[in-house]
């Protein structure tokens, strides 16, 4: 079949246009919220601080914005109070159900058309009694491996996301954790071919496990947009470096064969027994 040169050219022109909205290097340094975890129905006050050294910053033009987790669209939470190079705001993120809020600081500068954005931080509204690792903030995005203070093989930011998003399903939490561990080992682990392949096989088992759990929890075939493995993957690949690492491995897998569980027992690929978990 033939290439459609006109369509191809149109597509490439579009990507050229996307480039006009190029991201501007940030001069806004945000710190993890204090505290970064509160509990449902609590009225805990959270303090968010940013450092802006650029003297051209407009003090009244520094805002805290909240990012919608699905659409990515921002909502202004409020204006941050200046104190020299430090900008502060306090919030009370109260919800009746667990949630993970993502915030960035948006700052205006004299003579600069576009506002600058900080990297994101999160505040978790956790189920009562659940202890989460602290939000690593921008430091958690600085390296391929990120930060894992708990030593569980799951990055702190991903562990927080799993605990909050799947608070009502122990099976899904366990499956998502298995997959996150597999991805972390794959992305940040050794790159020799043998280890990498073993890590991919572990990842595929985790995908099978989550496919089974989604099927049982959902009661049928889950739409791709609701696949738990895909949601975890999105959280895991939250920087260009991490995405690059994953897709480079993916490229090398072309020509591989991957079986599913013996007899189609996908649940047996879980490293726990789904039947013993309550929900």
């Amino acid at each position, binding site marked *: 079949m033939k290439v459609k040169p006109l369509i191809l050219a149109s597509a490439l022109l579009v990507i050229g246009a996307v480039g006009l909205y190029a991201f501007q290097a940030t001069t806004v340094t945000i710190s993890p919220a204090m505290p970064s975890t509160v509990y449902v129905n609590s009225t805990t006050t959270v303090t968010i601080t940013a450092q802006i050294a650029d003297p051209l910053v407009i003090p009244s033009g520094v805002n805290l914005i909240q990012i919608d987790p699905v659409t990515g669209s921002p909502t202004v939470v409020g204006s941050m109070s200046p104190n020299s190079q430090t900008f502060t705001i306090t919030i009370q993120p109260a919800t009746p159900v667990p949630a993970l809020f993502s915030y960035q600081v948006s700052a205006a500068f004299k003579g600069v058309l576009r506002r600058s954005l900080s990297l994101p931080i999160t505040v978790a509204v956790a189920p009562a009694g659940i202890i989460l690792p602290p939000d690593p903030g921008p430091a958690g995005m600085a390296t391929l491996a990120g930060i894992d203070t708990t030593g569980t093989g799951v990055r702190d930011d991903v562990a927080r996301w799993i605990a909050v998003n799947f608070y009502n399903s122990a099976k899904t939490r366990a499956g998502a954790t298995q997959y996150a561990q597999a991805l972390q080992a794959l992305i940040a682990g050794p790159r020799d071919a043998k280890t990498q392949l073993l890590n991919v096989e572990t990842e595929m088992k985790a995908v099978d496990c989550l496919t089974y759990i989604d099927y049982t929890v959902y009661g049928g075939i*889950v739409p791709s947009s609701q696949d738990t493995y895909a949601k975890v993957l999105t959280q895991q690949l939250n920087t260009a470096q991490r995405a690059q690492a994953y897709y480079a491995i993916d490229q090398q897998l072309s020509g591989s064969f991957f079986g599913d569980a013996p007899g189609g027992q996908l649940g047996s690929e879980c490293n726990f027994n789904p039947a013993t978990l309550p929900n």
Partner: protein
Amino acid sequence: MRGRGVIMLLWLISATRLRAQSTGDTCLPAPTAIYFGNGVLNTHAEAESAMGKLDLAVRAKLGPLVGPTSIQFCLAYDSEYQLVSGGLINLPLQLLDALEQEGVELTSQVLSSIGNVAFAPPELQDIALASIESASTVNLALRPDLQAQEAHYKQDLSAGRKIIVVAHSQGNLYVNQAYTDLAPTPADFDVVAVASPADYVAGGGPWTTLRNDIITLVPGALLNNEFNTNTPGYCNPPPDLTSEINCHSFTDSYLVGNDSGDRILSEIISDIPKSIQPTWTERFPGSSPGPRFSSAMAFDEAHNEMLLFGGGGPISNVLNDTWIWNGANWNQLHPTTSPAVSGPMAYDSLHDRIVMSSRVSLFGATQTWLWDGSTWTQVFPATSPLGDVYAMAYDRARGKTVLFGGGFAQTWLWDGSTWTQVFPATSPPARFDFAMAYDAIHQTVVLFGGCCNGPDVSWADTWLWDGSTWTKSAASGPPGRQGAGIAYDSVLQEIILFGGSALLNGDLLGDTWAWNGSMWTQLLYSTNPAPRVDSAMAYDEAHQQVILFGGQVGNVSTPIVNDTWVWGPSTTN
């Protein structure tokens, strides 16, 4: 035009990139291998998930007709696409590189779109479209991936396995080429084409293409032949590009679509050989035990043969002869000593003995006998269950033979040397002539039915023993009965139940049911053993068949029979 230049440069670079391939293979052999050949725009995780969903859907539609290990799914993964120029690209990687070069802010939303273009912003979808169309013009002859797939198929064919390839999108180009190169016997290799960009299906197989799938833009592609009504937002006509791309999705559009999904699953199932789907077949051995009912039968794993002992004869005589089934004939053995009467028996794999609890008198102590492959030996434990109406099954997970004494609802365990009565928190109500077998995959002893839940009313309940207590299953199942045959099929991984009597001295049954650990399903066949009660039934591990022998088929003429039936895939029958 800056973007175009960057993309073209990146693609040229990729054309000269050396592949440091670390390919793997975790596919398990099975009589029927079902391959999933993924299309473009899939990561390995996405392709694995799609295959898993296909597996679940096929098995759900198949029900218990095919043993779980009779078919095995395998992903033939392909993540690189060949361009007209001869270069190979990995689309997500190239999109990521291009976006970085262009300085596009790589938010988590943008990054997630790279791996799932169906949900991507329009500009990414445009690039994806261009890639689909350029990648569809392929020269696969020298591709290592194609060679790997051909080698895999060749290995299966050499081993006598049936191959079914469910190919999505570009996967069709690979399987078409592989089929041409291998020239298999058509009956051994079937292709189920989904959303194919090609203009034919290898072997003349069926295809499914949805109206308004973006793949229909490919010149010469197979014509669309399906349209779903349960996937709104998918497959809208142009210029709805998002809908056209969504339409191409294997799982969200094709597999769950009310028309396309049924078509694809039916095509796969029709390609699965009927020979691996179990049926009842009567055997006519040259020698056979005489007519009888309530014989004891168990498979001797240590000696790989089926053992049958005793039973009740047609003139009310008590039999105590010993026979073995070798897959074709019954052969009588003549041990020096034998139990006087039969009773339930089970193979104790921990001690490599068949244990039989011989009921010498009603309500008297039972005798315990062991079979070692050639000799019956009576052992004398300190305590024994009473000669009640009871059944037995070996609990392999816990290494104990479980005996449930129906009249007094007692539970006893045999550990190889001692009988111990246990007192679980709950027990089935007292009963007799019930069926009991061990469900190895779920590690439970399953008890079904028996007599009587009131005057002339048989039990229709299912109870599960987990090593410590009995739990009544909420599942409904076969009509109430007594004297049913029961056996665990270790290949099918289900318990099979046959026949029995619906009422005391009443209607005889000839139905077949399967228990999968949570529910009963009736299996319907055109050929069945005659309705009967108190037949002997056990699973022959050596030949992978359920064996049914004898029983009582009526009250007037030839009420007691000695026919032999096997239930299993016709390849084993």
